[in-house]
Structures are given as structure tokens and as C-alpha cells.
């Protein structure tokens, strides 16, 4: 984040362009001169809902593969630790509303999550069960 107020905003803002593509997309990029650098298999869940903004919440584990495209032999990069990502698209005209919606949702989720460093899992939050029950 850059510019005025960047320090006050506790979320990451990125420009994202996404497109669906047919299964020959890798061959297409090789064809126009790109070379494969690395591949990661992400396995998990995605939730989409509207709550002041169009949210996507994903809970995923990243996996490495010993050979190219060998999804059956994938190994978790951070065993026992998953990545929770909360994203919402924003445009210039609704930017502040989306920022506050995402910030407030993150605060809502915070009691359920424990931040862990790779290789050093802090385990599941002991109050997770109770926190989840109180949210429902």
C-alpha cells in the first residue's frame, strides 16, 4: 500500500486480473515464449457471499510436487497449517466501503484463527469451537 492513509489500512490491496481459460493454456504461454518457473497445488475450500462487499474466503494448503503435474504425489509445504485468505473486489467508487467491510469481517473471524509460523504450528485455537458456536 502506498499513499496517504496507507498505515491506517491493515489490509493488502492488489490489482488482480483473472480470466478463465481452456485446458491448453499452458501450451499457449509456452508458445508465446514463457517458461515454467514453478508450480504449486492449492487444495482447500472457497466460500463466496455478500456482506457489504462480494467476499471470497479460501482456506487452502499449498503443496509441492516432486515431478511436473504429479498431483497424486503432492506434499504439503506447511503441514498442519493452512492459509486463510479473505478477498473482495473494489473499484475507485466503492473502495472505502469495501475496505471497511473486509476489515470488519476479519475482526469477526479473528477469534477463530491462530497465526502460526511455518514449521511451528500453534494448533487450533482452544476457544475455536465456542467462538464458532457464538457466531452462528
Amino acid at each position: 500500500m502506498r499513499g496517504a492513509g496507507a498505515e491506517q489500512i491493515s489490509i493488502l490491496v492488489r490489482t488482480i486480473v483473472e480470466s478463465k481459460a481452456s485446458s491448453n493454456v499452458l501450451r499457449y504461454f509456452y508458445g508465446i515464449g514463457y517458461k515454467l518457473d514453478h508450480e504449486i497445488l492449492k487444495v482447500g475450500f472457497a466460500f463466496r457471499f455478500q456482506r457489504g462487499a462480494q467476499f471470497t474466503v479460501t482456506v487452502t494448503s499449498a503443496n509441492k510436487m516432486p515431478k511436473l503435474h504429479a498431483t497424486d504425489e503432492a506434499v504439503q509445504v506447511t503441514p498442519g497449517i493452512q492459509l486463510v485468505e479473505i478477498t473482495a473486489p473494489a473499484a475507485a467508487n466503492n473502495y472505502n466501503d469495501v475496505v471497511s467491510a473486509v476489515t470488519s469481517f476479519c475482526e469477526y473471524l479473528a477469534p477463530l484463527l491462530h497465526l502460526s509460523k511455518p514449521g511451528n504450528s500453534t494448533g487450533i485455537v482452544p476457544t475455536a469451537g465456542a467462538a464458532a458456536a457464538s457466531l452462528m
Partner: protein
Amino acid sequence: MPRRRLMHWHPNPGATLNSQILAEACSCAESLGGTKDGRWKTSIISCRPITRDSMGAGGRLPPDVPGELLGVALHEHPGLYFSILRTHRLVLQADAAFPHVMEKLQSYKARVSLDFEGFQYQLGDFCLRIGKCAPNNSETMRGIIMEVEYYPLSSIEKSRAIMVDFFDIWQETLAKKSLPGRFIHVESNFSEYGLSDHYSFQHTAVQYATCLQQLMAVRA
């Protein structure tokens, strides 16, 4: 999906393209009993690589990078976008955000955009689309094309005979106008592009790329 066949106007040596040929082709469709039911449009965008100074003397590209990408946008399906890599016989089907992806990557840039557009006629089990090809925002006619769609069949092989029969009737009717040229169909090698006998949007995109090559060759 229904099979389509694209044809383009091949002028006689020395003859030029003009809107009268287009008008005669449209009236031919009507004389065969076609009912006009709207307009159609397809756009082809030619993208060239962006050369960078860091690429060495004169900013030349590595030899294996294709000189051109063709983007095809079918206006009846605005959510789709096709990108054709002719050198690799590859047709990528993506969505409308794909040109933005390419723009962000800064490897290829759209240079020329050509619009194929005109009127559409329903004729029994067929749909005829007759129109002109012109650069985006210009009236200069670069070609005249005709698309024939046959609703009942998706198989290219099975529909071949009926398409040829239809075309014979069309040619006979149009010949009465004594126009300086004729419509021709140039086969696209679908199997080279990994496409099956079952017709799809990707087949249409490949046919437009083939047609464009023909139109550019005629002008040369």
C-alpha cells in the same frame, strides 16, 4: 452447437470491392426467401509482440516468439474471447478479461482491429450472415464475407453434403447478377488445431483466422 461455414468474396483479377456487391448478396438472400432478423458482428484483433530495449541490438525478439497473436471476439457471446497462435496451431478459449491479462503482461499489444459485420437472414434450417470486413472506426472495405449456419447438425462431416448443396444453389442465384467475382470457402485444418468433428466456438474462431489470411492475401 450448429455447424457454420465461412466464405469470403474473391474478386476477379483487376476488380475491386464495393458496397454494391454486398447489397446484391443481401438481396440474393432475400430472393431465396430469407427474412432479415438483425445484425451480427465479429471482431479480430491482431496483437504484436512488444519489443524491449533489453532484448539486445535493435530490440529484436528471441527467434521462437510468434510475431502475431489473433484475438477473436464473437459479439453474440460477449463473455468469450479466443486467442489464436497460428504458428503453434493453438486456439485458446478464455473470457473477456483475457485481453486485460495480456495487457498487464506487456508481452503483446493490440495493433489492428478489424470488424466483420452486417445483416443476418433466417432461411429455413439455415442462418445466413452477410457483411463486410473493415478496420475498426473506418469505412474502408477490406472484404465481404458470408457465414452459413445449419441448425440441425453439429457434425462437420455429416453436414458437408448439405452445405455444398446450399452453396451450389447460392452460387447459381448470385451468378445471375453477373458480379465481378465469387464467394469461395477455404477449408480450415481443424484437426491441426486439435479440434474434433463436433462443431464449437473454437472452430468459428479458427475459420475467421483462415478467412483473414485469405483477405490479406487477396489485397497483397
